[in-house]
């Protein structure tokens, strides 16, 4: 039962700085706020213990597998139209067919690719920009901080989905535009997370030590601060990915998503809208895919958050 401190004052933890990477740089130290090495092992244990996390990991694994190997997993072509319109699930078409005779399962599998791709790429972009801004703001302070945080506050107060809708409408649909539009939504969250971590870590002694030894600002930011901010950023990333998937589905549903020959889950739902009352499988299965994906990402994210012991930033879930 190690004593924990609320005010962050060092009692037991920051006694001897342990090297995070083990390489030559003796100043790469661990912060109090960073999970100790071995956290990944603990995460593995948590995964096995918590059913939700296990479920999430399995489902996500399956989905990634499906995304990568889609063409080999199904004999049908996603756009191949058949005369078997609106067939309920059967042996040849396990999830049924849509109004143009296309196999639903195939389309959903191919849709996995897009959704996952959109999810990851949008988060990646938003993360890079957001974290960069947050680092700059937190580290340099003063007017850079003010400007960046004003922008972040402004964006934070906004329904990002609506901005995405507007952007896609103005600049046109298509995969690239959708990705750009959605990725803008994350900048504020990542910037906030990064900035608050920077502010906390900046005060740690090893940063002062590095500065005294003459390390340049960039080096400090890169070598010392950034590695220690990974935990909350990772957690934020999982939240953002699930949002991305839902946002992409929403945009596609509205007709503002990607082009219609690439089947995304939202598009499938949108196409089938008028038939859903007669062909229940066209409504349920795409939705289930979305739900399962987002659910498993959320489970994993939760498990990650618990293991890495990250405090929620600003109370947002």
């Amino acid at each position, binding site marked *: 039962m190690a004593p924990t401190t609320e005010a962050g004052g060092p009692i037991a933890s920051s006694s001897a700085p342990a090297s995070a990477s083990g390489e030559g740089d003796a100043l790469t130290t661990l912060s109090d706020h960073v999970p100790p090495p071995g956290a990944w092992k603990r995460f593995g244990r948590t995964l096995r213990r918590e059913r*939700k996390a296990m479920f999430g990991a399995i489902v996500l694994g399956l989905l990634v597998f499906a995304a990568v190997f889609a063409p080999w997993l199904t004999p049908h072509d996603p756009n191949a139209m058949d005369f078997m319109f609106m067939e309920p699930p059967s042996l040849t078409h396990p999830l049924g067919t849509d109004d143009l005779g296309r196999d639903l399962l195939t389309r959903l599998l191919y849709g996995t690719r897009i959704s996952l791709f959109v999810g990851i790429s949008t988060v990646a972009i938003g993360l890079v920009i957001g974290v960069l801004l947050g680092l700059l703001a937190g580290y340099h302070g003063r007017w850079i901080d003010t400007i960046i945080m004003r922008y972040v506050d*402004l964006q*934070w*107060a*906004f*329904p*990002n*989905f*609506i901005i995405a*809708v*507007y952007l896609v*409408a*103005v600049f046109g649909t298509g995969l690239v535009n959708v990705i750009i539009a959605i990725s803008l939504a994350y900048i504020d969250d990542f910037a906030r997370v990064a900035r608050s971590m920077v502010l906390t870590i900046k005060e740690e002694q090893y940063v002062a030590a590095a500065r005294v030894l003459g390390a340049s600002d960039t080096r400090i930011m890169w070598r010392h601060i950034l590695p220690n901010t990974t935990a909350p950023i990772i957690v934020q990333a999982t939240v953002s990915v*699930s949002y991305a998937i*839902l946002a992409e*589905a*929403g945009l596609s*549903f*509205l*007709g*503002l998503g990607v082009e219609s020959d690439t089947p995304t889950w*939202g598009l499938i*739902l949108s196409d089938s*809208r008028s038939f*859903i*009352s007669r062909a*229940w499988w066209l*409504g*349920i299965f*795409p*939705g289930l895919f*979305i*739900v*399962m*994906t*987002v*659910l498993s990402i*959320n*489970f994993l994210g939760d498990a990650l958050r618990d293991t890495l012991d990250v405090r*929620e930033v*600003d*109370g*947002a*879930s």
Partner: protein
Amino acid sequence: MTSYILRRVLGAFVVMWAVATLVFFMLRAVPGDPIAAMLFDAGDAAAVEAMKARFGFDQSIFVQYFKWLWLTLQGDFGNSIYGSRVEVSRIIAEALPRTLSLALLAFVIAMVIAVPAGLISAVHRNSALDNGVTLFAFLGLAMPDFWLGIMLIIVFAANLQWLPAIGYEPLSAGFWPWFSHLIMPAIAIGTPFAAIIARMIRSSMLEVMRTEYITVARSKGLKNRTILLRHALPNALIPVVTVMGIAVALLMSGAVVVENVFAIKGLGRVLIGGILNRDYPVVQGAILAVSAIFVFANLAVDLLYGVIDPRIRYD
């Protein structure tokens, strides 16, 4: 306290101004001729001239901006490009109460479900009840709202025929017509909102229950119900109020899509329609209206803080 209110109100107006400015420049950033964007028939010379004069297209961008700002403040958003060239302000005025009704109903339903759920979850931590609530919360967050809406339509409208599938009736037509048309979309957009609130209440309550003043309350021999409802819950609600402000975004963006599904001519439908038709005056007006709802909802949340937390009141 008054300074707090003033600052918040001022902040709200500043944000609105920023949004409006953003909208203005975004419109100008659209590739193509802005006049053509705002006028269906760019060949009509007289109309083009009139438009130029009104919006100052032949003058510098700054003049345009201020003219536009002035017009906007007066509520003149121009006219819709299509159809009978209805004034955008009229379109907005018709659509606004619908979206507001929807959002409010969703909010109320969500709170009525989420607060007790979160409370029970926290009090009976790790029990079957808690796990059930948590599972529902996760599911609620994982479902796209429009999908939930579609499912609800299938079950309640198509199959059971208890509720009308689409459309909107104002309150003036009676409570049940109004309610029956709005209940399904309200549930659709309220569910993710409720999920967030329930989880937030749960974690907030768990934290509050660990505080010193709760131990003190127990040491006073107070009844459990008193401690829970009088001591713990009000404190637990404070971070929840913060989240509520953010979650209003969920309601609004949900409304945008769900109105589509349920054919409710609210702001969402107007916005999407405008976008798809490239009807920029309408788009402008709709975005401004949505932002306004959003900003002022957040303002209300901020002011709510002042009411709940005496530390803010007596600074």
